[in-house]
């Protein structure tokens, strides 16, 4: 795909660093300078500094910035507690909330010309998904010990040879469906936007897609987080 102008890549090229022309670079420095990597760093820096600047020191009587973040974090906390219980929500809130903020900002940043969504690369979404997938098994083993494996055996011992492959396949399908859905939606948005910009950018052709892009970005971040919560609570609950 013909990439539009990406500001960070242009800056890096002016600095003399090698920016790969394909999707992935050939050596280590090129791989680090690939657009999805640099924009991942950008999103992380953005989140860090914006929160640092808007909150500053925590005060008892919140200012405008602190008020905003209190609403965001408070509503996320409520949402998690509703869906997976207070105890689990308290323990895994930092991780899931970070995912939610990161994915939302990463999705939305691609709507600004000159930026790209890091989540439009399968590498980013697969990394996020693998963290979630490993964590939900760790939660399961922590809660039930070795008895967690019984969740994969089905209800009747006689049916284990039949149920085990089914459970394993449907569990592995989670990795693919979670990562590819986020990647596919965001990549489609990015591709569509860049094509419409190239074809008829002067006639505001991308405008409706920009509007839809905001919806898709927020909804996909929500879906990812909600599925994470569902997987965590399923791993934690007693075997059915």
């Amino acid at each position, binding site marked *: 795909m013909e990439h539009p102008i990406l500001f960070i890549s242009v800056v890096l090229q002016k600095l003399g660093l090698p920016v790969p022309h394909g999707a992935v670079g050939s050596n280590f420095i090129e791989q680090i300078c690939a657009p999805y990597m640099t924009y991942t760093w950008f999103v992380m820096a953005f989140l860090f500094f914006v929160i640092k600047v808007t909150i500053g020191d925590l005060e008892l009587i919140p200012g405008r910035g602190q008020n905003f973040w209190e609403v965001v974090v408070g509503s996320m906390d409520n949402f998690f507690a509703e869906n997976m219980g207070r105890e689990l929500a308290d323990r895994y809130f930092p991780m899931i909330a970070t995912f939610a903020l990161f994915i939302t900002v990463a999705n939305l940043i691609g709507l600004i010309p000159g930026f790209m969504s890091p989540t439009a690369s399968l590498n980013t979404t697969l990394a996020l998904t693998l963290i979630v997938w490993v964590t939900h098994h760790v939660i399961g083993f922590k809660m039930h010990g070795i008895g967690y494996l019984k969740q994969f055996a089905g209800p009747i011992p006689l049916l284990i040879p039949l149920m085990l492959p089914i459970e394993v396949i*449907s569990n592995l399908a989670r990795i693919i469906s979670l990562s590819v859905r986020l990647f596919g939606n965001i990549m489609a948005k990015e591709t569509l936007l860049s094509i419409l910009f190239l074809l008829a950018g002067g006639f505001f052709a991308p405008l409706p897609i920009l509007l839809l892009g905001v919806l898709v970005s927020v909804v996909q971040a929500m879906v990812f987080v909600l599925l994470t919560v569902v997987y965590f609570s399923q791993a934690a609950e007693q075997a059915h």
Partner: protein
Amino acid sequence: MSGVKKEFVHLLANYGHVGFTFATSIVLGFAGGVLLDQKVFNGKTAPWFTFIGLAFGIAAGYKTLLDVVRVAQADEKRQAREEQERHER
């Protein structure tokens, strides 16, 4: 977020992934079968493990559907319980 919008996003999150997960399960089962046939047994068992893998994949697909139903039922039960608690107060 307003009530309707919240409901909409919630529904999308709960059911938007059904089709994709179903398809992924089938493809995974099929791919596993092909892998067993071609790589492990070098094509000697040719179509059989592919068929078995496909069958398991389809079964796994239906299992993911059942999972969705189970999550929805648990959701409903929780909502009913909350409603009851609100009435009792």
